[in-house]
């Protein structure tokens, strides 16, 4: 297991280098002079030349790439001219919020998705199966930001006079710092409800669809027939023999879903004004703050690589066959 884990971790290193490289390529393809971003228009050519020199823009491409990669991998993402602070500080403030939102939704959607998928597979062909198939396909096809808007309409503005009212913007109420620790916690949880619910609903459809297919495949295997032939009760056949094997591929889904989850999180952060990475990137785009955009892109890439690594390791834990195989 240890050598398997080490091999996997080593394989992730070139991928992170690749992610940084791709960001660098994108940066160098941008038309226009990067130095001009930091300067007022109409600056004298001598000053521009000096700035270019200090920024190292006149170095050959290879040297620039080396320096840039070195800085990036050390977490030095440059200076944000919009926020007037190092990009690193700004990004590190936003990252935990994104992780909080994403991990909550990931956990809930896998929990619900697995339950729904298994239920559908067991009751295959029944009315319940068809209804759940329709519902999961619906949530699979729905734009996350639109669902967010509709949930705001229903649960917060209460157009149907419902009893619900949840906050729809930010991660804390104004003046939350003055509250007692307990009230601060409930305030934060209160703000988490709608964003997490939206993201969970979006993801659950896909998870349930996948689990259903995977379980159906397992249920048709010979050993399930054997278990039934032995006269085991159906619940034991499904829960003990079916579920164990049916859920193995779900661990891979975890890795596949990570980028999808983060894409969804970006949109939902914007709708709910959640102070995470996605909202930060969008703000940076609108204010042409390229260092923040690039650092955000890089960190999202790193998150996906690490998420995949985690999924790989989990796969090794639940399925011994994977550990033995090379690669």
């Amino acid at each position, binding site marked *: 297991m240890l050598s398997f884990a080490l091999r996997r971790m080593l394989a992730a290193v070139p991928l992170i280098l690749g992610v940084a490289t791709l960001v660098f390529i994108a940066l160098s393809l941008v038309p226009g002079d990067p130095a001009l971003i930091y300067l007022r228009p109409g600056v004298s050519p001598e000053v521009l030349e000096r700035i270019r020199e200090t920024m190292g823009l006149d170095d050959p491409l290879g040297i620039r790439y080396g320096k840039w990669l070195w800085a990036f991998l050390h977490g030095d993402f440059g200076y944000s001219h919009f926020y007037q602070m190092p990009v690193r500080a700004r990004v590190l403030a936003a990252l935990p919020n994104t992780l909080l939102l994403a991990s909550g939704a990931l956990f809930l959607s896998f929990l619900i998705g697995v339950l729904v998928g298994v239920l559908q597979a067991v009751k295959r062909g029944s009315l319940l199966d068809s209804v759940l198939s329709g519902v999961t396909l619906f949530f699979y096809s729905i734009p996350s930001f639109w669902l967010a808007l509709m949930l705001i309409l229903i649960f917060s503005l209460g157009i149907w006079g419902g009893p619900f009212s949840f906050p729809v913007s930010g991660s804390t109420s104004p003046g939350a710092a003055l509250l007692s620790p307990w009230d601060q916690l409930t305030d934060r949880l209160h703000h988490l409800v709608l964003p997490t619910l939206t993201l969970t609903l979006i993801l659950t459809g896909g998870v349930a669809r996948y689990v259903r297919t995977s379980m159906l495949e397992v249920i048709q295997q010979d050993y399930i027939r054997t278990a039934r032939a032995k006269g085991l009760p159906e619940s034991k056949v499904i829960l003990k023999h079916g579920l164990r094997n049916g859920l193995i591929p779900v661990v891979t889904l975890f890795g596949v879903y990570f980028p999808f989850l983060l894409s969804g999180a970006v*949109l939902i952060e914007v709708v709910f004004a959640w102070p995470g990475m996605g909202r930060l990137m*969008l703000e940076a785009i609108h204010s042409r703050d390229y260092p923040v*955009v690039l650092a955000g892109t890089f960190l999202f890439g790193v998150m996906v690589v690490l998420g995949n690594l985690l999924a790989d390791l989990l796969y090794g834990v639940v399925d011994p066959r994977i550990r033995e195989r090379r690669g």
Partner: protein
Amino acid sequence: MGSRVRFVLPGLPHLFRGRVLEGGVALFLWLGLLALSGLRMDRVLQAPSGDIGDWVALLTLLGVLAGVWIWSAKDEVGGGGGAPGGSVGSRGVSVEGWRVFRKDPMAMAGLGIVLAFYLAMLLAPFLAPFEPEARGAFEVGGDMALRLAAPSSTHLMGTDQYSQDVLSRILYGARISLTVGLLAVGLSLTIGVFLGAIAGYLGGRIDTSIMRFVDMVMAFPRLVLLLAIVALFQPSILVIVLALAFTQWPFTTRMVRGEILALKGREFSEAAHALGFSRRRILFMHLLPNAMGPVIVVATLGIGNIILLEAGLSFLGLGVRASTPSWGFMLFEGWDYMMDAWWVAAFPGLAIVLVVLAFNLVGDGLRDALDPRQREGRSQ
């Protein structure tokens, strides 16, 4: 039934013979389009002096009317209602696939919705009750009450903050939302299939370098990559299509490579090799056609996904800027007025949901029809 009756109303003879679905669709299309051109006669007659959109609409109208009529007449005279059972051989898979597909009501419903949306998009100038730019309240003698008016019989989906008719804007806005998806998937298919086939067939260093690049691109969440590209290069329709295709091709490449690797070892491939065929011929004539089933499935599901991504980009204010905005942009604009006028944001969103849902239904149906492994799994 008189032999000439069948030429009068297309689809009617099919209905009498119990082929309800084909007959009904043909009859509905034919009568519906006739009614449309009757009701909007003045608009249709104006079309020849209009812009390219009007021309496209006119040609579509005439083309579909003629097409339905010819299909119906020919089907009755020639085929006599029988299915083309004799065609086996190279087209066997697709014929067999179609037979499975048409028995799947959900997939057929999806196909119907997709085709209806594209038809509505092409016929937008005739279908839309108002010009999409017509700003009722702001024109001379306009009525300010028309601003953000609730859905009514004149404005079926209400009006927006510029008192433009939401339904008309949805019909015109479909042009961007639906074409961008098709273009991007077409482009990504071309690149993805080519690179995947080469990587899988040639192997070695070429394979490694292509797949490493695929891994790199796939390491980014798609929306984040799109945001970064669009932010760096400014949104134009070309940049958006290229960027969407750029985030889509790795999926195709990875899958095609896997299929080619699996097919490479099969007997027919070795037989072709033994016959002395060139490698290019084996790859493109023998291996690739056999790998196309899953590719088509993934492409269909991909269109739905790309429509969602484009809507997301537009919603963030980074989509294509046009006089008639895409559905995502309408949502972005309607967001501010959501408390007073839910219809401005709700209906474009529903349009997106419906189209994406339909593409996913078609994709699911195609998977059952084209992927033999799945089919065996289902029929047990």
